[in-house]
């Protein structure tokens, strides 16, 4: 067994602190019924829960991609020498497809390279042919004849495996539920497919089934083929897409979270304290939001680039440089987006400060700081939660655009933006290299769509204006 050393990046720490913050929040929420009740509505929303299931898969992938380590190469003088290559747990899982590099482009499920090469045949003549791939479909003796039946056979067995896995999981969950709810399995089973209160559970089951039906055959096939093809340098596109998920996730979550304290503090202060504090804060956010966000981001990123290039000594490795750049991008994105949340919070705090319970607190000579923390803040949290989930999708989409413009993440970092950017250059190629683009767009669509639908469910549950009026 090789030794390894955990080597976390800054963004890893942040990802894991968000994960633990969410767990702590969930534990906190379940203690308080008034905090729990909107989440119960979210849980009952079948569309939202189906989206959450998909989203959870993305989260798991990006968490696995956030455990970085270096493996030990050798031991010299009792000291371990570690590899310069920083790997993550996801890399470990994807080891086979990461290593299987082809020479250049190959289409999904291809057995041959995409472009012709000159090779010497048995007779020693130069010949222009599509050479066999080094790794994709090498198990086929006669690629032309065996290719389609092999894929068909393997997909079929993948689908069968998916069915078995799903059924097994479903039965386990069912029996646990029947134990907990003390209802016989048969009755529970019937109620899942008929009872309207179980519709969210039903939606989750169906979503998992669909994901398994698509995912398991792909995983099975991925060990024989490049299921999504390879890119210019022969790297598996599936691997790139999976690695891009973390980048999108980190940007979507961190950008809002890093500037959240500023937005909340300033928003509440402006709305509650009014007067010159309000004037100053309003001026700050009007000024910031008056700069078109792309330009503000571009200007900041350009300056950051210049800074990093001039201070290379501060960043020990290429990975840490890319990581710092990612974090800086999050902060910059956050700086341009906090103004909207700040304005919302200011408005809501202004409404709240006129409420009678705030005046009652004044009548007890409660300090302003305490009123803001005790009375205002808990009553604006729903806006913060809505902003968090609703900004996510916009930020993921923005990353792609910014990377295209050249002010996104580091070019060495895999992201949807860099994938699209590099694939775009091959658009004019005849026949077209379509797979990189399609895969990047599909993954991005899945992530953003899941986030958007989930955000809708959260908004429906948290926004008091959307609740049905009952006279």
């Amino acid at each position: 067994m090789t030794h390894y050393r955990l080597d976390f990046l800054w963004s890893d720490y942040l990802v894991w602190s968000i994960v633990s913050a969410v767990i702590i929040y969930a534990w906190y929420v379940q203690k308080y019924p008034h905090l729990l009740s909107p989440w119960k509505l979210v849980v009952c929303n079948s569309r939202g829960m189906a989206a959450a299931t998909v989203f959870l898969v993305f989260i798991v992938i990006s968490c696995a991609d956030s455990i970085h380590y270096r493996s030990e190469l050798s031991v010299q003088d009792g000291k371990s020498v570690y590899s310069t290559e920083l790997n993550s747990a996801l890399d470990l899982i994807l080891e086979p497809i990461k290593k299987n590099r082809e020479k250049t482009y190959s289409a999904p499920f291809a057995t041959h390279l995409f472009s012709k090469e000159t090779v010497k045949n048995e007779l020693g003549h130069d010949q222009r042919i599509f050479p066999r791939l080094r790794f994709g479909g090498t198990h086929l003796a006669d690629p032309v004849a065996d290719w389609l039946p092999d894929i068909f056979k393997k997909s079929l067995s993948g689908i069968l495996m998916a069915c078995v896995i799903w059924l097994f999981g479903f039965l386990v969950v069912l029996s646990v539920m029947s134990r907990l709810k003390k209802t016989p399995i048969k009755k529970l089973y019937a109620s899942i497919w008929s009872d309207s209160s179980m519709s969210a559970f039903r939606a989750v089951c169906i979503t998992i089934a669909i994901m398994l039906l698509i995912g398991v055959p792909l995983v099975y096939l991925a060990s024989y083929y490049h299921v999504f093809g390879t890119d210019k340098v022969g790297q598996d596109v599936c691997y790139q897409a999976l690695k891009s998920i973390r980048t999108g996730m980190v940007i979507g979550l961190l950008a809002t979270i890093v500037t959240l304290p500023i937005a909340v503090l300033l928003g509440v202060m402006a709305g509650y304290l009014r007067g010159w504090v309000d004037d100053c804060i309003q001026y700050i956010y009007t000024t910031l939001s008056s700069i078109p966000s792309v330009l503000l981001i571009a200007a900041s990123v350009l300056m950051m680039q210049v800074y990093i290039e001039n201070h290379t000594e501060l960043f020990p490795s290429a990975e840490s440089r890319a990581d710092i750049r990612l974090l800086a991008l999050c902060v910059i994105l956050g700086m341009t987006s906090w103004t909207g949340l700040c304005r919302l919070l200011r408005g809501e705090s202004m409404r709240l400060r006129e409420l009678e319970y705030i005046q009652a607190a004044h009548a007890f000579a409660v300090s302003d700081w305490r009123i803001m923390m005790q009375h205002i803040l808990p009553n604006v949290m729903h806006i913060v939660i809505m902003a968090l989930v609703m900004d996510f999708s916009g930020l993921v989409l923005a990353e792609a655009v910014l990377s295209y413009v050249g002010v996104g993440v580091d070019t060495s970092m895999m992201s949807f933006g860099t994938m699209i950017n590099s694939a775009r250059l091959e658009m004019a190629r005849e026949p077209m290299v379509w797979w990189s683009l399609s895969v990047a767009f599909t993954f991005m669509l899945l992530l953003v769509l899941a986030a958007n639908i989930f955000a809708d469910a959260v908004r429906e549950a948290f926004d008091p204006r959307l609740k049905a009026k009952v006279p």
Partner: protein
Amino acid sequence: MGAYLFRRILYGILVLVGVNMITFGLFFFVNSPDDMARAQLGLKRVTPAAVEKWKVERGYDKPLFVNNAVQGFAKVNETIFYEKSIKLFAFEFGESDQGRNIGFDIANRMWPSLAVQLPAFMIGLPIYLSFALLMAFLRSTYVDIWGVLLCVLMMSISVMFYIIAGQYFFGKLWNLVPISGYDTGFDAIKFLALPILISVISGLGSNARWYRTIFLEEMSKDYVRTARAKGLPEHKVLFVHVLKNALIPILTGVVALIPMLFMGALITESFFGIPGLGSYTIDAITQQDFAIVRAMVFLGSVLYIIGLILTDISYTLVDPRVRLS
């Protein structure tokens, strides 16, 4: 009204001062001109002499705030702060780092941007509004539910996908329009058709959904019930009462966007090779032309503030509650 407007304009100028301070800080404090020169020249060609030459050519060799080398007003005038920041207020953008006149470029490139943005805006708005009205009119039916889902789907798709797919199908596969390029006069239409179409489609999801929310919020108000109690048919309730009220926030929101049309759409222009301000900005960013980026930041803020003021004016025009009190 006059006094109010004047105050808003003063505030706008104050905001512009703030914007200039931010850009000045970003460009001259985070990094020194030397750093910029090094970054521009690339690591290989960096010699102290080259850096100095680069700075002199672009006017970055002067002191930041006070020039003690000269006398009188020039003490303040011949500084980076004055040359690169104060002059912006007079819309003197100076020369780009490549040596081109920025003001001239902006004046030329504004019109292609507008040629895409304005038609897209004029065609898009009625389409978004009608789609939103249709969903609100048939609320809680399958049209509404699937309409909202369609909107969510459409807003989850990256704008780059719309562009690439459009170019592939309309340009490459069906050969209806050229993939990219630009021309003046009537020939421009064939180059503009696809960018306009894609701008309209890519905005459909988010806009229609947003307008639908506004319509529905308005429909839950009491005066709508009064209108129904008069015996008005549902379409009259919707078109006379709801639309009139909902259009106030929608139109005033839209008015704020009109000045920004000049700025162009970054991605669309870049993909379609339209020589507008959007592609100008992107080129400046990729070439790290700091002077153009500074100029565009300032121009963008000016247009944004004009939008804010226009919003205020349009409110007083369309809302009797603001107009008459």
